[in-house]
C-alpha cells in the first residue's frame, strides 16, 4: 500500500468536533488566566488578540484545539490561550505537532514559531512538515531578530545587520520564509502583517480551512531589538510598499485607478522566466500576471515571492501565495492504520490476534 486512494476531507477542520447548536464562544473563552508578558509595544500582542478573537469564528470545540510552540518570544503564545497547549523545545514544535496531528484526526493543531525557531534551529523540521503536508497551521512570527536572547541577528536579518554578535555587520544571506516554504512544496503559503488585523484574520481563516500544512509568515515588529524593521512597508503614505495578492486577480499595486481598479504598478513576466514590476500604464492589460494560488506548479508563486526585499524591507508581496490540494500525511497514515485494523477485526480481538502473532512461524511444542 503506497498511498491511500479514498475521498479525503477537504477542509482543515472537517473532522474536529464543533460547538453544539446555539452554543457560542467569545475571544474571552480563549484567554487563559496567565498574565501576558511580552515587552510593551511587541507585535505579538496584536497577533494574540487577533487569534483570540478569530478562534471563536471557527466554531470548534475549545478542547479540540492544540497550540504547540518552540522557544523564543512568540513561543510563549500557548500559555495565553485557554486551549490544550505545549511550549516545547527550540525548533522542534513542527515535529511534536506532527505527532499530535497524526495521532488524532479530531484536533485542530497550530504551531507558533519565530524566524530563529523555525528557520534556524528548526529548519529541518519545518521543511519536512511542509513536505509531508501534515494537517496543521504554522504561524511564523518574523521579526528578523533574536529577541529572547537579547538581540542577535536571525536567519531573516538583512546582510550587514549590526547586532551584539555581529558588531561589524552580519555576513550571511537571509532566508525568505515564503520562498523557502514554496521550495519545500508547501501546499499553503501566505504572508501577513501584525498591524493589519483584517488581513491577518482573513489569512488565518484561509489557513485554518486548508487541509494540509499551512505556513503563514507574519511580519511582526520587535520594538526592543529591531524596532522599525517593517516601518517602510507599514507606511500608509508609501503606496508601493505592499503587493497584495488575490487569487484570480491581476497583480497590481500602488495608486489605484478609480476607473479600472488597477494600481499604477503591475507584475509582468520577465524575460528570464520570473516576474518584474512595470508601470501599469505602459503594459497591455493582458500582460499583467493574474495570480493563480491554485497553480500546481509553484514557479509563479516563487517568482512573486522573490519581489520581497532581502535587505531593509521597502517592498513585499502579501496574501496567499499558494493554496493547492494535496493528500495529507496524517490522513493517509490514519487510513493505513484504520484500514488494516478494520480488516483484521474479523480475525478476532486484539488479544486473540496478538496470541496468533507471537505464535506464528516455526514453532514447536514441548509437553
Amino acid at each position, binding site marked *: 500500500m503506497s498511498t491511500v486512494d479514498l475521498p479525503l476531507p477537504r477542509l482543515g477542520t472537517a473532522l474536529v468536533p464543533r460547538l453544539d447548536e446555539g452554543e457560542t464562544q467569545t475571544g474571552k473563552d480563549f484567554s487563559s488566566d496567565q498574565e501576558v508578558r511580552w515587552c510593551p509595544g511587541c507585535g505579538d500582542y496584536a497577533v494574540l488578540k487577533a487569534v483570540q478573537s478569530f478562534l471563536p469564528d471557527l466554531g470548534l470545540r*475549545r478542547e479540540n484545539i492544540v497550540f504547540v510552540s518552540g522557544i523564543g518570544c512568540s513561543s510563549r503564545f500557548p500559555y495565553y490561550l485557554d486551549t490544550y497547549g*505545549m511550549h516545547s523545545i527550540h525548533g522542534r514544535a513542527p515535529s511534536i505537532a506532527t505527532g499530535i496531528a497524526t495521532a488524532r484526526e479530531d484536533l485542530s493543531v497550530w504551531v507558533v514559531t519565530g524566524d530563529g525557531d523555525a528557520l534556524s534551529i528548526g529548519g529541518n523540521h519545518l521543511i519536512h512538515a511542509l513536505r509531508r503536508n501534515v494537517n496543521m497551521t504554522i504561524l511564523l512570527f518574523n521579526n528578523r531578530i533574536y529577541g529572547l536572547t537579547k538581540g542577535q541577528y536571525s536567519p531573516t536579518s538583512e546582510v550587514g545587520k549590526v547586532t551584539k554578535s555581529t558588531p561589524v555587520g552580519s555576513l550571511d544571506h537571509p532566508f525568505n520564509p515564503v520562498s523557502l516554504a514554496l521550495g519545500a512544496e508547501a501546499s499553503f503559503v501566505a504572508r501577513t502583517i501584525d498591524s493589519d488585523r483584517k488581513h491577518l484574520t482573513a489569512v488565518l481563516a484561509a489557513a485554518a480551512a486548508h487541509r494540509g500544512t499551512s505556513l503563514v509568515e507574519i511580519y511582526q515588529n520587535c520594538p526592543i531589538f529591531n524596532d522599525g524593521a517593517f516601518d517602510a512597508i507599514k507606511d500608509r503614505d508609501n503606496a508601493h510598499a505592499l503587493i497584495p495578492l488575490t487569487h484570480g486577480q491581476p497583480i497590481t499595486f500602488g495608486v489605484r485607478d478609480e476607473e479600472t481598479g488597477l494600481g499604477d504598478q503591475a507584475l509582468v513576466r520577465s524575460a528570464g522566466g520570473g516576474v518584474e514590476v512595470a508601470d501599469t500604464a505602459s503594459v497591455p492589460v493582458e500582460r499583467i500576471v493574474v495570480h493563480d494560488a491554485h497553480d500546481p506548479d509553484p514557479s509563479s508563486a516563487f517568482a512573486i515571492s522573490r519581489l520581497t526585499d532581502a535587505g531593509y524591507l521597502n517592498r513585499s508581496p502579501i496574501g496567499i501565495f499558494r493554496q493547492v490540494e494535496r493528500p495529507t500525511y496524517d490522513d493517509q497514515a490514519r487510513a493505513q492504520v484504520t484500514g488494516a485494523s478494520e480488516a483484521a477485526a474479523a480475525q478476532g480481538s486484539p488479544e486473540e490476534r496478538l496470541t496468533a502473532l507471537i505464535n506464528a512461524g516455526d514453532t514447536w511444542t514441548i509437553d
Partner: protein
Amino acid sequence: MSQTKQVKQLDRVIIRFAGDSGDGMQLTGDRFTQESAVFGNDLVTLPNFPAEIRAPQGTIPGVSSFQIHFADHDILTAGDRPDVLVAMNPAALKANVGDLPSGATIIVDTHDFTKRNLDKAGYSSNPLDKLGEVDDILAGFQVQPVDLTGITVEAVKEFGLSRKDAARAKNMFALGLLSWMYGRPTEPTIAFLERKFAKVADILGANIAAFKAGWNYGETTETFVVQYEIKPAKMNAGTYRNITGNLALSYGLVAAGVRSGLPVFLGSYPITPASDILHELSKHKAFGVTTLQAEDEIAGIGAAIGASFAGQLGVTTTSGPGIALKSEAIGLAVMTELPLVVINVQRGGPSTGLPTKTEQADLLQAMYGRNGEAPVPIVAPQSPGDCFTAAVEAARIAITYRTPVFLLSDGYLANGSEPWAVPSVDDLPRIDPGFATGTNHPSTDAKGNQVDDFWPYLRDEETLARPWAIPGTAGLEHRIGGLEKAGTLEDGHGNISYDPANHDAMVRLRQEKVQRIADSLAPLEVDDASGEAKVLVIGWGSTYGPIGAACRRVRRAGHNVAQVHLRHLNPFPKDLGDILRRYDKVLVPEMNLGQLSKMLRAEYLVDAQGYNHVYGLPLKAAELAEAIGALVGEAEGKHVDLGEHGTNPPSDHEEAPTS
C-alpha cells in the same frame, strides 16, 4: 543413512559460518538455526557482520559470520570458540582461524583459494597446499577442503543459470552438508526456500538442488565419516519459537499497546542496529500501530512526545548516537511528565564507533546524559527473548508513572536469537492509562463562588504521577512545557514558576517519583544454591548469558558463587543494597569500562570490582569464569582450579547446568 557412517553423540556443538559479505552467511546461519530450533535443541546465536553493505570482496574487513551454539541442554551463550568453522574464502579462514581451539574442524571452499584471493587475505602461499607438511599452519585442525562452488555449479547445471548465479547457491550446499553432519531436519529449509523464491522457479530449483547436493555429499562421499547427534534439549513445557531480540522487542511493544488499550506510535529514524524494530512495527498497523520515519532522530522523538500528549503510547527507537541527539527532547518528556518509551539498541561507541558490534557503554548516558537533574527509569533485557518482557515492563512504567523510560538493549541481543517460550497473552500485565476525565481541584474564587479547576500537576499520592489529560477532554484544557512549573503536592496548578523553593521541591519530586517505581518491583532473585558463596557476580543486559555460563563452570568445579542480574537499573530494586552487603566480594562484568560498578559503588559504598571488555563482542564465558574463580580463591583463601570439564573437547566449552 549410509551403513558405513559412524554416529557420534555430542551434548553441544558450536559452528561458525564465515564468508564474504555477499556469500549469504547470515541466511545460512539463520536457516541452520531454524532447523535446530525445530529439532528441539537449545541454542544461542551470534551474527557478526561488517558495517559496510558490501565491503571490498575477498578482504578480511568484508568477512561476515554467523555462529550458532546448540545443545541437548539449557545453554546461555553462543560459545567462546567454534568446534566447526565453515570458511567460504581465504579471508574468512584467516579472520576466524585464531578463534578455533585445536582439534576444531574446518570445512573450506577450495574454489576461492586463488592467488588473488590469497593475496587479499594476506596469505603469501596457499595454506591448503601445505596440509600435512612441516610448515602446515593448519596443523592441529581437521581440515576438510571441498570445492563447494565447483560442486554446486555442477549440481545446479540443469537450471541453466549463469555461472555467477549458479555459484551463489554454494551457501545452500554448505547448509545441506552441515545439516547432514548434525542430523538437522531439512523440511523447514525446503519450505523456506519455496516461500522465498516462489516467483523465480530456476533460482528455487537451484537452491533446493544445491541444498540436497550438500546433504548427499556428506552422506555418500568418504570425506565425511562421522555424523553427529545432539539430542533435543529438555525444556519446560510450552510452545517455543526461535526469536531475535529486535523481533521480541517489537512484539513486546505491540503487546504493550494491546494490554494498555493505547495505540502505539513509533517515531524513529533508521540506525543500525535498531532499524529492524521500525521495520517490524511498520507491519503491525492492524494492531493500531503507527510508524513515522522521521527526518531525523530529534523529530522521531518529537513526534512520539506529541503522540503521547495526544493520548497514544509514544515510542522512539535508536542507538547511542541517536540518544545523544534526542537528549534535549527526553528532558522535555521528563519535565512535561508524559509517558514515553525510549529504546537504545546499544552499539560500539563513542561517535559512530562500531555500528554493527555490541557494547553496553550507554548506561551512564541513560542515567545522566541530560542537562539538569533529569531522572529517567532504565530497564534492560537479558536475552533476545527477554526483550519482549522488558518492552512490556518499560511501557508499564512509562504509562503508570507518566515518565520517559529507557530500554537498553544491545547489538548482540538485537541480532542474536534463542528459543523463546511464547507467553500467554492473558498472563501479561494489564496497563491502565487512567486518563483524566474531569476537574480535580474544587476551590472558591474571590467572590466566594465554587470553581472546579483542573490542575495538571495534582499528583497521585502513591506514585506521584500527574494526571494524563488528553486533548478533546472538555474542561481540562491546560498547557505544559519545558519551563519549570509549580507542580508540587501542595501546589499542582502547573503554572510557570521561577520560585526557588518550588524548583528545589520539583527537582526532588521528579527524583522521588522515579524512586517510587521501586515499590512496584519484585524482590531480586539471587542464584546462590548453596547459600555459602562469598562472591556475588552482578550484571545487567546481555552479559546474563556469559555470566551465567561462567558461574555454572565455577560451581561445576566445586566452588560457590552467587549470581544476580538486574532488570531495573534505575531505580535499583529495594533489596539490592542488602544483597550486595551479604557477600565479601562483588564482581561486575560489563562490556564497558565499569559503568554499573560505578553506580553500585556510589549508591551502596560497596567495593564492586569491574570485569570489563569492550571488543564489540559478548564476553567469553571461560575467561570470565577464570576471573570469578580467582576472586572466589581470594575470598575463601584457597587455590581455585577450574580444571577440565565437559564430555567433548575443548575444555573451555560452556558447562551444562549441574542437575
